[in-house]
């Protein structure tokens, strides 16, 4: 089985940013994404959506370039005012060419 090495970017943010982040990653070249509901705690205290109790965790499998572009955009747009964590991870993907 042919496996393609790609980046998996994970973004956990307040629920409220979901729509915008999805748009952002699509514009950066991601071919797809997967979202799960999450709750969490971090450095930031209370936030607007907190009392609804939920974050979202967005994962997207992308090429190295797309990864860099996504990280840059998110850092610029959201790090100052919103609760967001972003990390990447090396994965091997089946039918990887679909996601580049």
């Amino acid at each position: 089985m042919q496996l393609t090495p790609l980046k998996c970017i994970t973004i956990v943010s307040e629920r409220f940013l979901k729509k915008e982040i999805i748009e952002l990653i699509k514009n950066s070249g991601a071919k797809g994404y997967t979202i799960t509901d999450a709750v969490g705690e971090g450095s930031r205290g209370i936030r607007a959506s907190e009392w609804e109790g939920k974050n979202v965790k967005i994962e997207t499998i992308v090429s190295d370039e797309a990864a860099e572009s996504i990280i840059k955009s998110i850092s610029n747009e959201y790090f100052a005012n919103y609760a967001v964590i972003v990390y990447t991870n090396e994965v091997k993907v089946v039918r990887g060419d679909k996601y580049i």
Partner: protein
Amino acid sequence: METVLSNFSSPVVLAFILGICSKLVKSDLEFPRPLYQSISIYLLLAIGLKGGVELSKTPFAEFFMPAIVTLLLGVVTPLTAYAILRYIGKVDISNSAGIAAHYGSVSMVTFLVAISFMEQKGLPPEGFMPTLLALLEIPGIIVALMIPLALSSKKGTLGKALHEVVTGSSIFLLIGGLIIGYIVGPVKYISIEPFFSGGFQGALFLFLLELGMVTANRIRDLKKVGVFIIFFGILVPVLHAIPAILLGAWAGLSIGGVTVFATMVASASYIAAPAAVRIALPDASPSIYLTASLGITFPFNIAFGIPLYYYLTTLIMG
């Protein structure tokens, strides 16, 4: 005084207190988010539908003046709130505008508790009150958010925030319900009435249980926001209620109607406003505006405000 005490033996107020207690004793009680969402949908549709049905029976003339007065207060209250925050409290522009948006808008649950309260007193308000609720929900947020724009040359996120408020699920369901109720009319409404009327008070009971739990979390943050905000959260509602009582009475509302109207004006949004402010003024601190509206003003209104506004209304009207 007596009214306040009797308010404390009302089921919905006790549910609210039970919710607060559940956090105090660290109970593992968990209110599933889908239940919370479902009850929101239910309550908003129910008040919309009932309001729409009532509206279809109300002559336009009777409704006209209260509507005008509502819009007027929707424009004025965020400005007074802003002025107090900015010039007395020395709060910065963003936070002043952010908090003002909350106090210019309205809290659906406070509104409902006020209706419950007046119905138990045998003085139900006019049937078109939900329409006033819808009219009051939006303008205050817009006016408040426009302040920083008018003052500085900020980037235009107001449009996005506005879209968020207008299409936000709470305003959408309320107005959708109003329109459907209006079209459907009293006869066709009968089929869905048992569902939307019979269960209403019970659903409100559950909702206040949940809000009590949320409020308890907010109350913990009281120490973070400072003494000025605490005073603000108690005094501004009363300050807003007074002109509301005068104007409501002048516009021809009944005692029940005036009390509920004053409560609406005195209440602070904690659903529509936070979402809009988060978008338009990301540097305003949610700890402050949520703690003020949800941690101070909301419980104050539920426990003391409503009986107080009722008392003031009877003083003035009768």
